[in-house]
């Protein structure tokens, strides 16, 4: 247990990368979206949703990659077992997701109260995904963040074990899986029911799907972790 905590602390020795950088990027995206909305023809669209919130998720994904790709060798050198390193890093992902999700929820409330920051911009009020009561927003945004961190971790582990070629093969395998799934869905004439499933999926249902995905990613990442060497 102590070893896991040490692993999480070890990452946070780089406080800036994990605690400050995501918000700096989000701020940048926020300001960029204001400019785009106000000063470019994009603002003429009645739909006031801007995609800038995705930026912090991209940064979190990169944090996940770096937490393994750059930090694993020294972590193992400090006498952390692979299991502890992995569980400690996953713990960090959960903690970051939960707390950052809460901040996003709070910012969404402020956005609602200020009528879209005074310019009717929907930055945090992402349609369909982040609609609904505040606790669902928290759940969805938190789980999505944990998921992307875990996804990044897995990429980092694949990189550690098999290098760049491995990462590309890994990505290609996932694309293949999606394509195979699409072909099977076509043969089984299942598109209608798939569409129906997602249409009737509530926001909490979506979170459930994301949690299942998160667990799958954590299990997959750990399988890669078990034989990694530095």
């Amino acid at each position, binding site marked *: 247990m*102590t*070893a896991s905590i*040490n692993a999480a*602390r*070890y990452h946070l*020795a*780089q406080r800036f*990368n994990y605690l400050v950088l995501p918000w700096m990027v989000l701020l940048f995206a926020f300001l960029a979206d204001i400019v785009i909305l106000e000063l470019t023809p994009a603002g003429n669209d009645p739909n006031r949703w801007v995609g800038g919130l995705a930026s912090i998720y991209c940064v979190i994904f990169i944090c996940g990659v*770096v937490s393994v790709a*750059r*930090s694993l*060798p*020294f972590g*193992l*050198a*400090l*006498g*952390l*077992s*692979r*299991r*502890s390193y992995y569980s400690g890093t996953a713990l960090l992902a959960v903690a970051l997701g939960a707390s950052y999700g809460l901040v996003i929820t709070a910012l969404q409330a402020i956005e609602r109260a200020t009528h879209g920051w005074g310019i009717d911009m929907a930055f945090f009020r992402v349609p369909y995904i982040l609609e609904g009561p505040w606790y669902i927003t928290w759940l969805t945004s938190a789980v999505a963040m944990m998921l992307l961190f875990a996804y990044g971790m897995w990429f980092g582990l694949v990189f550690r074990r098999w290098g760049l070629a491995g990462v590309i093969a890994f990505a290609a395998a996932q694309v293949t899986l999606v394509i195979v799934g699409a072909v099977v869905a076509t043969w089984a004439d299942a598109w209608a029911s798939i569409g129906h499933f997602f249409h009737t999926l509530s926001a909490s249902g979506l979170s459930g799907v994301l949690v299942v995905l998160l667990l799958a990613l954590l299990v997959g990442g750990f399988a890669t972790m078990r*034989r990694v*060497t*530095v």
Partner: protein
Amino acid sequence: MTATISVAGLTRRYRDHLALDDITVDLEDASITGLLGRNGAGKSTLMRILAAQEFPSAGRVRVLGENPMENDAILRRIVLVREDQLFPDFRVYQALRAASWCYPAWDDGLARSLVADFDLPANRLIKKLSRGMRSALGIVIGLAAQADVTLFDEPYAGLDAVARQIFYDRLLADYAAHPRTVVLSTHLIDEVADLLERVVMIDRGRVVLDGPADDVRGSATTVSGPAVVVEQFVGARQTWGRRRLDPGPGAPAPLGTVVAAGGHGARRQP
């Protein structure tokens, strides 16, 4: 008494070569052992397996009585200082701080005094350090960790002679104050020869020599002088090599050099 480090039948096979071939070695507590061998002999592989950073293909590894693989309780009593250690984007003080969390016996005073001895800039990014300074950082971590099993894998890459001497002195001083199991792999045999209590030599993945340093030191000697006298001295002893300098005509007698074996040798493995 159970050996601190006990390795039996250890083999590590890679796709294209055999790094370790059926290694059996036992190292007792409170000793400084030198791990000698040529480049690519398998020294680093052995140490990495002891620190559970590498997986054995076959054989049994016991450190402090247990298998170190995925064993947190044992791993926090082992420290491996590698010459090719990869660090994240840390500054020197962050690396030391992380190490202090992970090693329960960490000696902060020792760390600070070693940083001063090696003149390490605490605030600098590790990737901006020179090669020698990165080695010095590794040594600081290795010594200040106060781990029961301290493994140094050629830790002085790039260290100048002064810094190397600092390392030897500080190692010996700390070892005298807190005896533990130290394994030091090296090429610089002459420099560390006096430090070593025990010598294990690896060649092409096999242990070829394993015994007390004194025995190894006493097992061979070099004799130089006038060739006739040298030959007389050597007599029927086993020799490793001969060199003979024959001067031109009208010059004094030829000289010879012989490396001869004699006395009690260390256990040699075929």
